[in-house]
């Protein structure tokens, strides 16, 4: 734990230092990034220690704040979430050095790095805190820091708007958490997580209310479907390395919180599992559908975060069903799959956001339909982005496939043997996950294909240049991570053992038994992957030999006889996704603005599509408007006539007198 305390101290010092240092920005960046990297390295030591079965003593320091205690503990669950957090924080920090260079001189970079360090610190504290007050403070610190990071480019109206939405969403979420923690505190007479975990809530107690509060509160941060509105706003607005951090790990603190909360709430009734699966399905399917309809690259990725949170939630839901029916298979595979996907998503979503960042950095636009042919100009970014895309589509041999494999396997194993009440949701999960997979492939073939392949669609591309090494290195490492987890799946899954033991109350033997039942097929999967790669090399060589002695020419793309194909003729992101968006048009409510070609020699024809977020349009806007109207009724109270003001006082007095003396 001393390591972690050191890490946090370094973060704090780094934050202060960058704030005080001011110019020159170059050194500021290095100072900020450096402190984050060092902190992460230090932090990883105990994390690895715990994940490999060791244990780290907790820190309990009295903290003179009512009901507060500076109580940090590193149990396997925390460690599991802390690892990707530290990793991605460090990599994004390195990336940030290069990414922020554009602003040097135009803007003091001190604050950015200050808030970046605070954000990392906040996330660490959230994961480590074992006292409700400390947790809440850390939670709010995290929100505040990320708010200031999101509003980095606050000259832009849209960014300010996004900042507002983000902060409002996260704060309203916190309101539910306040209720959650305080109610728990009342039920148990303590604000101490360990006490809560031991005592739990008597089933007579308001367990279900607490569950709902936790789902709403933490779900807002995680981005469950109806509560996700802030993601597609905040992620595009934030600087890309921050988007990577937020989408990669910050939203996972919501998942962490939900898991933590579940450990307090005792044996769950069946409907909790159903609820989580329902949430997972809606988030997953709708998330990927909305992503499909976007043509802003970062917005698209943001919606994919919603989708992946959905997948994780599906895992948790399956696990929860397992808990309430006492089926270890479901528990291990469900929670295991969910947890593994947390890490995987951190890797490939981080990677993809960094890639999107380099594209933005190089071309100055996030509009997919203005890009194209970038692969030639930014080969590294393209290659890594491709790996990320394959991984997030859940295709072998990369890591995305592994976690989804676990969840699928769990669902199948559970569904084959159990009764309808369990089997139905599980098979719904299977179908949904399959659909999600198919749509994800559609979405990322689009994203990668339109952005990096084909011919440039606008002059933005001509300016494009490959990112410098500070930006390439993190992407390469993350891509490597995706491949490695794919190839060493059994090992990684094995390392879930300690986590699952601490999370669930299952005896170690059961956990390891069920994990073994998973790792054996996984080893086959890996075998398959190896064979695949072997065949790949063989075929490459074969092709080389075949073509070696023959004529290989280059020409224009075959336009089916059309002599002058132009870049404008290419398929765009919108047209690529059009069949699917039309099919699901009812859900998406895509708005089209068309000027169709007219006459024999049409001058111009345009198509403009916007897909506003359904829940913010259909749900929040109406609610806010209703509340507005309702409250604005009160405004006549303050009409400026002093006589009536006095009248209020008189009436209040008389009414109270009559009430009091009746």
């Amino acid at each position: 734990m001393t390591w972690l305390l050191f890490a946090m101290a370094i973060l704090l010092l780094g934050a202060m230092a960058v704030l005080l240092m001011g110019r020159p920005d170059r050194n500021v960046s290095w100072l900020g990034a450096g402190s984050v990297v060092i902190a992460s390295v230090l932090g990883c030591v105990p994390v690895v220690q715990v994940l490999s079965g060791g244990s780290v003593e907790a820190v309990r320091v009295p903290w003179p704040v009512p009901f507060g205690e500076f109580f940090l503990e590193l149990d396997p669950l925390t460690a599991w979430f802390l690892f990707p957090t530290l990793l991605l924080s460090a990599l994004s920090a390195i990336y940030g050095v290069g990414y922020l260079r554009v602003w040097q001189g135009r803007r003091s970079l001190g604050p950015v790095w200050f808030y970046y360090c605070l954000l990392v610190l906040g996330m660490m504290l959230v994961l480590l805190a074992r006292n409700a007050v400390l947790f809440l403070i850390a939670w709010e610190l995290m929100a505040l820091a990320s708010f200031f990071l999101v509003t980095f480019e606050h000259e832009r109206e849209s960014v300010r708007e996004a900042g507002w939405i983000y902060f409002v969403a996260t704060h309203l979420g916190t309101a539910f958490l306040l209720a959650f923690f305080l109610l728990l505190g009342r039920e148990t007479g303590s604000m101490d997580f360990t006490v809560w975990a031991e005592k739990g809530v008597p089933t007579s107690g308001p367990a279900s209310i607490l569950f709902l509060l936790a789902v709403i509160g933490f779900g807002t941060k995680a981005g469950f479907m109806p509560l996700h509105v802030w993601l597609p706003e905040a992620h595009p607005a934030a600087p890309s390395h921050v988007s990577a951090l937020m989408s990669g790990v910050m939203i996972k603190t919501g998942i962490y919180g939900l898991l933590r909360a579940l450990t307090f709430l005792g044996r769950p009734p069946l409907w909790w599992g159903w609820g989580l699966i329902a949430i997972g399905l809606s988030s997953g399917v709708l998330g990927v559908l909305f992503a499909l309809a976007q043509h802003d690259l970062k917005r698209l990725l943001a919606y994919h975060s919603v989708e992946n949170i959905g997948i994780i939630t599906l895992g948790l839901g399956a696990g929860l069903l397992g808990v309430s029916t006492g089926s270890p298979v479901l528990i291990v595979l469900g929670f295991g799959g969910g947890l593994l996907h947390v890490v995987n998503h951190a890797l490939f979503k981080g990677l993809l956001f960094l890639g999107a960042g380099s594209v933005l950095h190089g071309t100055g636009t996030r509009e997919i339909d203005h890009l194209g042919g970038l692969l030639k100009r930014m080969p590294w970014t393209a290659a890594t982005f491709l790996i990320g895309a394959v991984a997030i589509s859940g295709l072998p041999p990369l890591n995305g496939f592994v976690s989804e494999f676990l969840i699928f396997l769990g669902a199948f194993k559970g569904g084959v043997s159990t009764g309808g009440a369990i089997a139905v949701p599980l098979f719904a999960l299977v179908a949904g996950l399959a659909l999600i997979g198919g749509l994800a492939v559609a979405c990322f073939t689009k994203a990668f294909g339109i952005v990096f392949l084909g011919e440039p669609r606008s002059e933005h591309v001509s300016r494009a240049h490959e990112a410098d090494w500070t930006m390439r290195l993190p992407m390469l490492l993350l891509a490597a991570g995706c491949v490695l987890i794919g190839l060493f799946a059994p090992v990684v899954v094995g390392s879930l053992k300690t986590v699952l033991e601490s999370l669930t109350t299952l005896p170690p033997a059961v956990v390891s038994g069920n994990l073994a039942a998973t790792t054996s097929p996984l080893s086959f999967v890996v075998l398959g992957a190896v064979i695949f790669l072997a065949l790949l090399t063989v075929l490459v060589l074969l092709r080389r030999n075949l073509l070696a002695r023959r004529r290989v020419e280059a020409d224009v793309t075959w336009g089916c006889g059309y002599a002058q194909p132009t870049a404008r003729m290419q398929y765009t992101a919108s047209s690529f996704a059009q069949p699917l968006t039309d099919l699901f048009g009812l859900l998406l409510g895509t708005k089209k603005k068309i000027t169709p070609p007219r006459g024999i020699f049409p001058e111009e024809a345009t198509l403009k599509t916007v897909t506003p977020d359904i829940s913010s349009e259909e749900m929040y806007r109406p609610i806010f408007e209703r509340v507005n109207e309702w409250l604005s009724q009160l405004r006549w109270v303050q009409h400026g006539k002093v006589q009536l003001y006095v009248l209020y006082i008189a009436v209040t007095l008389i009414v109270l007198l009559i009430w009091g003396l009746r």
Partner: protein
Amino acid sequence: MMTNLILVLVVLTNLKLLGSSRLGASIRVVAAQGVMLGLLPVLAHVHELSLHLAALAVGTVALKGVVFPWLLFRALREAEVTREVEPYVGYITSILVGLAALAASFWLGGRLPVSTVEPSSLLVPSALFSILAGLFLIVARKRAVNQVLGFLVLENGIYTFGVGIVAETPFLVELGVLLDAFVAVFVMGIAVYHINREFDHIEVDRLDRLKG
């Protein structure tokens, strides 16, 4: 005996105020009311008449009977107004409301178990009635002067209550109260004067620029 007589008179003066539109008349009525109330403590404790009671009576009469009217008349002269412009509530209605308020104050007075020094069933109700009447004046009239008057009536009501019930109210407190009342009216007078000079009218309902 005398007490009751005075109290009845107070009630009647209140009703008169509710009914009258001429500001000058209202000021005189309030002055009269002030004088009567000034005498009230003396009459209430004829037997143990003490120095501080006497002093208090003198002070009260001087203030409520002389100084306040003078201040208000000055304000009137500044503003060159003599009558209330059409009020929110007409005079007949006002009197009816007044009677209702009287009933209400009797009810409340009944519920309020205070043992008066000089037992009089009228004391508490009439005090409450003055308070309500004062409030009503403030709410229902438009001229600033009328609001000052309303405030004075309200003060009178509380004063009635004070002298009638807590005979032992420390002298210092009484003094402070009187002083405050004086300053209040003084301040209001100045305010009226300023308002008149700034807007050349003293109709409060037209002071509604600040809202929302």
